[in-house]
């Protein structure tokens, strides 16, 4: 029983990270209809930037966290302005390939700045555990879950209550109508990229104490993509739910199924889902019909 609970918590925390990255995908997709395959690499960059501030510059953890979010926001906006905006109106697969290329470039940049050795982020809660009735939970896992809940709450309020959030929703529902109503669509798209990069960076910083920081950590972005689709692409709660589902099943598969199978669980779930219910758990997008 205690083992099951522990697996569940570590699976949920992993799922939260998947969910956050998936959230980044979905935000960008809803606002600009672009698929960003470099989302995992944005997460990696976030983790490395946090490593620079917290470990190398010896900033307090929370301050380093905040500064990293700002840097990621700026980086995401710059990326949109410099690389993605010239691609507006190009076919979707061109944009997709562009972001794949971008991911490769980011990985090489990271290797050349921070080296190939895996790094650990100095967090104040590293290695500490919470014991409830002889069941041991790692603080790192619990904090991931808590922080994800907090971030989601913040985003929900932002999209519901703030002017900018509503403008973003409008732009993602219908760009032209939003433009006519005075929403600065270009600037909004830029900001969405920024926010998405910041969320990914947060995911990277939360993941860093659990796994190590290296240039290949961005590969979990692929699993996050699977999570986004399982949840129903284009649905924000769906991204989180999909992430949790994949995170938990992966954790259980790693423990109980054939060796190495855990690594492909996400993809098996994805393919099964695409056969059974291609629109995902929370269907929100419809395809144009003739």
């Amino acid at each position: 029983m205690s083992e099951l609970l522990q697996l569940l918590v570590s699976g949920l925390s992993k799922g939260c990270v998947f969910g956050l990255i998936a959230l980044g995908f979905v935000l960008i997709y809803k606002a600009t209809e672009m698929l960003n395959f470099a989302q995992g690499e944005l997460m990696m960059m976030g983790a490395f930037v946090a490593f620079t501030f917290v470990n190398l510059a010896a900033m307090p953890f929370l301050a380093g966290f905040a500064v990293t979010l700002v840097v990621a926001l700026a980086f995401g906006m710059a990326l949109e302005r410099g690389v993605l905006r010239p691609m507006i109106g190009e076919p979707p697969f061109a944009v997709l390939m562009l972001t794949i290329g971008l991911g490769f470039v980011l990985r090489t940049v990271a290797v050349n700045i921070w080296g190939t050795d895996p790094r650990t982020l100095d967090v104040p809660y590293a290695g500490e555990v919470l014991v409830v009735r002889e069941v041991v939970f790692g603080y790192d896992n619990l904090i991931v879950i808590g922080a994800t809940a907090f971030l989601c709450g913040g985003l929900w309020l932002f999209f519901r209550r703030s002017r900018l959030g509503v403008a973003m929703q409008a732009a993602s529902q219908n760009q032209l109508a939003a433009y006519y109503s005075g929403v600065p669509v270009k600037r909004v798209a830029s900001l969405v990229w920024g926010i998405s990069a910041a969320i990914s960076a947060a995911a990277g910083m939360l993941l860093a104490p659990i796994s190590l920081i290296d240039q290949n950590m961005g590969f979990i972005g692929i699993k996050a993509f699977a999570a986004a689709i399982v949840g129903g692409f284009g649905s924000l709660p769906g991204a989180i739910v999909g992430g949790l589902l994949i995170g938990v099943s992966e954790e259980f598969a790693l423990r109980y199924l054939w060796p190495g199978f855990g690594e492909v669980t996400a993809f098996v779930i994805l393919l099964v889902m695409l056969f059974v219910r291609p629109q995902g758990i929370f269907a929100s997008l419809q395809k144009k019909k003739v």
Partner: protein
Amino acid sequence: MRFVLTTRYAQDVALFRHNGQRFWYGLLAIALLVAPWLMTNFYVGEAAMVFIWAIAGVGVMLLVGYTGLVSLGHAAFLAIGAYTHAALLRYGVPLPLALLLATGAAAAAGALVGYAALRMTGVYLAVATLAFERIVAYLVEHGGALTGGVRGVAMTQPQWFGISVIHSHFFYYLCLGVLALCIFGAVNLLRSPTGRAFVAVRDSEVCAESMGVHLARTKTVAFALSAALTGLAGALMAHKIGHLVPEAFGVNVSIQLLLLVVVGGLGSLHGVVFGAIFVGFLPQILALARDQLAAFGVDRVPGLEVGAYGAILVLFLIFEPLGVYGRWLKIRAWFDEFPLYRKATYKKQKSYLRTERVH
């Protein structure tokens, strides 16, 4: 500039438009046939590798360039072709039959993925193919005696008329022949209703469907054909690699195939050849670049290869979406219209987001 006045239907469907084309392609064919006798064995081998890339490139081009479906998992078809071929040869199946069966196996896998892909819009497909690739990679790594697991499996190199398959000249002509067949087949396919349907699906699914194109069938056929050619290339590549290991067919290979079609020029078979030359010789170019960097005191750039692939992909997509072939067309237009060429002819026009959603 040459204008061809067509007076007969046969002229309209002819493979070559005019004698100029016949002359230049004939010259190219002769050059390719005599080339191995003028080169060292190393370059003959490299040229054969370029042909193999081009075969896979034709497959990817049919899917990405002509049907507009992106696959991030073509390395899986390459692996299926290679491992099937290796297994069949081990059981003593003759080479041509093994090649055909390997192609067939890849085609079947492609049809399966394509069929699964029908229910998704374009973007879902990319992820689904990636998922498929990861699952195939898992199966290859845990395939027991059939795939040799992570340690890999040695390739049987059969004899043909007393010559080993991997004899550099024999292999060169084998790959050249297969490539010529593939390109000939692709050219003919693209002039047929199926090929036209591919292009229609690429340009607008909604439009194609309302013109009576059977979307599901077209996409499945495109996928199966593309996988078949890639599998064939995989089978040939297996001979070249000699010892099959899972890393030889990683995600990087899928990206290299995409790089090939983008650099060559999406939507042109000429582009495939340009792209194959580029991808085939890129490692050598990068090795040279590495030496140059070492001269400047930068002795180690980790991940240079991967970064260069990514950067080239990004730069081409932003600045020359039509690739090398597109650039060649522009240069040719400049010469054709020599004193009268207007700069604005190929200027990128302002374009807007074409949405595929309903609101």
